[in-house]
C-alpha cells in the first residue's frame, strides 16, 4: 500500500517558472525515501505540494489513498494535521511554547484529547524527558529538531515529510535526527520522505529519488553515501 502517491504533478510559478515538471512517484507505507537533486531541481516544491503546503498547478496527490482536493486553507489544514507531519530545516517551533506544548499543539488545535502518557513516552524516547518545560530558545539545534519530529509524529500521520531536516545542525545533531527518522520507520512503521542535499543523510534512507530540472531522473535502492555522491555528480552534468 502506498502512503503517498503523486501523479503527473506540475507546479509553475508566475506563469513561466517551472519548478516541478510532471513528476509521478509512489512512496510505500513503512519506507524511508530521500529526494535529492541540485539547487533549483524542484525537490522542496515537490515536497510542499505533496504535503498540502503548496498547491500543484496540475496533477494529483494521494495521501493514504485520499486525494488532496481541498481548495480552502481551513479544510486543507484540517486534513494536514490529521494525516501529514512536516519537519522543517529551521524547526518552526513556537518560541513562546514549552516542549510539551509545542508537541501537543497539533492535537490541541484539532480538538483531540492529549494522551499525556504517550506524549511523555515519545519525548522520553527522543531523549527530551528532562526538557519538557523548556522553551525552544533553551535547547540546542539538535534538540529543537527532535521536538519538531515529535510534533510531526504525535498525530500518527500517514507520512512525515522532512525538508533538509539536518541543514541547520552540526554533525552530532544531524546524526541524532537521522537515527530518529530511521527508527520511526523501522521500529514504528511510519513513512518518511526527506529532501536533502547531503549524500550521508540520504544513505540513511531505503531509497533515493534523484530530481533535476523538475523531473525524476533516477532512483537508487539501498543507497550508500559514496554511490549517492557519485550519482549526484552525474545528475549535475547530464
Amino acid at each position: 500500500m502506498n502512503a503517498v502517491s503523486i501523479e503527473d504533478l506540475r507546479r509553475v510559478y508566475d506563469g513561466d517558472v517551472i519548478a516541478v515538471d510532471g513528476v509521478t512517484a509512489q512512496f510505500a507505507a513503512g519506507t524511508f525515501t530521500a529526494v535529492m537533486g541540485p539547487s533549483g531541481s524542484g525537490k522542496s516544491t515537490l515536497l510542499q505540494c505533496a504535503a498540502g503546503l503548496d498547491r500543484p498547478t496540475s496533477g494529483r496527490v494521494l495521501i493514504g489513498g485520499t486525494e488532496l482536493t481541498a481548495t480552502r486553507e481551513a479544510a486543507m489544514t484540517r486534513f494536514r494535521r490529521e494525516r501529514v507531519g512536516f519537519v522543517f530545516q529551521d524547526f518552526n517551533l513556537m518560541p513562546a511554547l514549552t516542549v510539551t506544548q509545542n508537541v501537543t499543539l497539533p492535537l490541541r488545535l484539532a480538538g483531540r484529547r492529549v494522551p499525556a502518557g504517550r506524549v511523555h513516552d515519545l519525548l522520553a524516547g527522543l531523549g527530551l524527558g528532562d526538557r519538557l518545560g523548556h522553551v525552544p530558545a533553551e535547547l540546542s539545534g539538535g534538540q529543537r529538531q527532535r521536538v519538531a519530529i515529535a510534533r510531526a509524529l504525535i498525530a500518527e500521520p500517514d507520512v512525515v515529510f522532512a525538508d533538509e531536516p539536518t541543514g541547520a545542525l552540526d554533525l552530532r545533531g544531524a546524526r541524532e535526527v537521522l537515527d530518529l527518522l530511521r527508527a520511526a520507520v523501522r521500529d514504528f512503521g511510519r513513512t518518511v520522505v526527506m529532501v536533502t542535499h547531503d549524500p550521508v543523510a540520504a544513505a540513511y534512507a531505503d531509497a533515493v529519488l534523484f530530481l533535476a530540472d523538475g523531473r525524476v531522473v533516477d532512483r537508487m535502492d539501498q543507497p550508500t553515501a559514496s554511490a549517492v555522491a557519485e550519482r549526484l555528480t552525474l545528475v549535475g552534468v547530464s
Partner: protein
Amino acid sequence: MIIVALALSGLRHRTGAFVATFVSATLGAAILMTFAALLDTAAGTTDTVSRDALILMASVAGGWCLLIVVFAVSSTMSLSVRQRSPEMGVLRRAGATPGQLTRMIVGEAVLVALIAAAVAVPIGLALGRVLLDLLADTGQVTASVGYAFGPIALGLGFGVTVLGSVLGALLAARRRPSPARSARGRGRVIAAVVLLAAGVTCGVLTATVMKGQGAAAMQTAGQASIWSAAGLALLAPWLLRLTARAVPRLSASGDLAVINVRQQAATLSGAVMPVIIFVGISTATVAMQAIEDTASAGRVRPGLEKSIQTLNYVVVGMIALFVAIMLVNTVLAVTAGRRGEFARQRLAGATPGQTLTMVAAESALLTVTGVGSGLLASVVTILPYGYARAGDWTPPVPAWPFPLIAAIAVLLTLAATLGATRRAIRGRAITAVA
C-alpha cells in the same frame, strides 16, 4: 554619507513600516500647532483679558497634549525601529558599527518627523482657527482678536515632533543589543509610581483645597485622571500579565492567546496604553461635566464655566481622537510584526479561523485590561470632584458614557486586530515564515 544614503533607501523601500509613525507624528504635530497658535495669537493681541485666557488655555490644555504627543510619537517610533531588527542584523554583520546604526535610525526618525510636521502645518493652521472661533463664541476671547499662526506654532510643532521621534528611535536603538531589561523595568516602575502619586495628589487636592471653589476644581480633578492614566499605562505589561493569569484554560486558541499575552506582554501592551489613556480621560471628563451640569443646574452659568465646558469637550475630543488613532496604529504595527509567528502556527496545524479566534481572544484580554485600568484612573477624578462640587462621594453620574466609551475601545481594538491579522495570514504559510 553612506549612512544617510541607507536611511533614505530605508524610507523608500519600507514605506509601509513608516506609515504608522508618520500618521501619529503628523496628528501629534497638528494638535501641538493648534494650541501653540493660541500663543502666537496672544502675542499679537493687546487685549489683556483675551491674552491671559489664550495663554491659560494653551499652557494647560496644550501641556497635556505635549505629554501625550511625545509619549505617542516616541512609542510608535520605537515600535517601528524594533520591527526592523532583522535588517539591522544584516547591516551589523555587513560591518556597520553600533554608532552608524544609531545614526541611521535617528536620521530616519528626524526625516519622518520633519515631513510629518510639514504636512501638519495646514491642519494645525485650520484647527487653531476653529479653536479661536470657539473661544470667541463662548465669550472667553473678544471677537476682535486676530488669528495668528507663527514662530511659536511652527517651533513647537516641529521641535516637539522631532524630539519625540528621536527619543523613541534612541530608546529602541539602544535597547536591542543589551539584554539589560530589568534596569529599564525599574525606571519604568519608578516613573509610574511618580505619575500615580501625582494623580492621587491631584485627587486629594480636589476633595480638600478645591472643595467649595466651584468649577475651578476641574483643573486639579481633570489632571488627576490624566496623571493616573499615564502611570497605569506605564504599568501596562504587568497589568496585562495579571489579567492573563486570571483567565481559565478553555480551547487551544484561547490557551495560545493567554500564553502569547504572558510572553509578549511587553510588545502587546503597546496597544493597552492608548486604551487606558483613552478610557481614563474620556470617562473622567464626561462624568466630571455631568457632575458639573447637575451642580450648576437651575442657575444662569457665568461665561467662564461655559467656556470651560467648551474647552473640556474640545480638548478631550482631540485627545480621544488622537489616542484612538494611536491605538489603531499600534495594533496594526504590532500585528504586522507577527506574520512569521502566525505562519509557524498555521504550519503546526492552525486554521485561519483558529488564528483569528486566538487574536480576538488576545484583544479581549488587552481591552479588558485597558478598559479596567482606564476606569480605575477615571475614579481618581470622579469621586473627588463629586465630593468637591456636590458634597457627595457617590455623585449621580449617568451610566451611559461608561459602556459607550468601553464599546468604542473594544470595537477599535478588535476591528484593527482582525483586519491586520487577516492581511498577515494571506498567502502561503511556508513563504511567510522565512
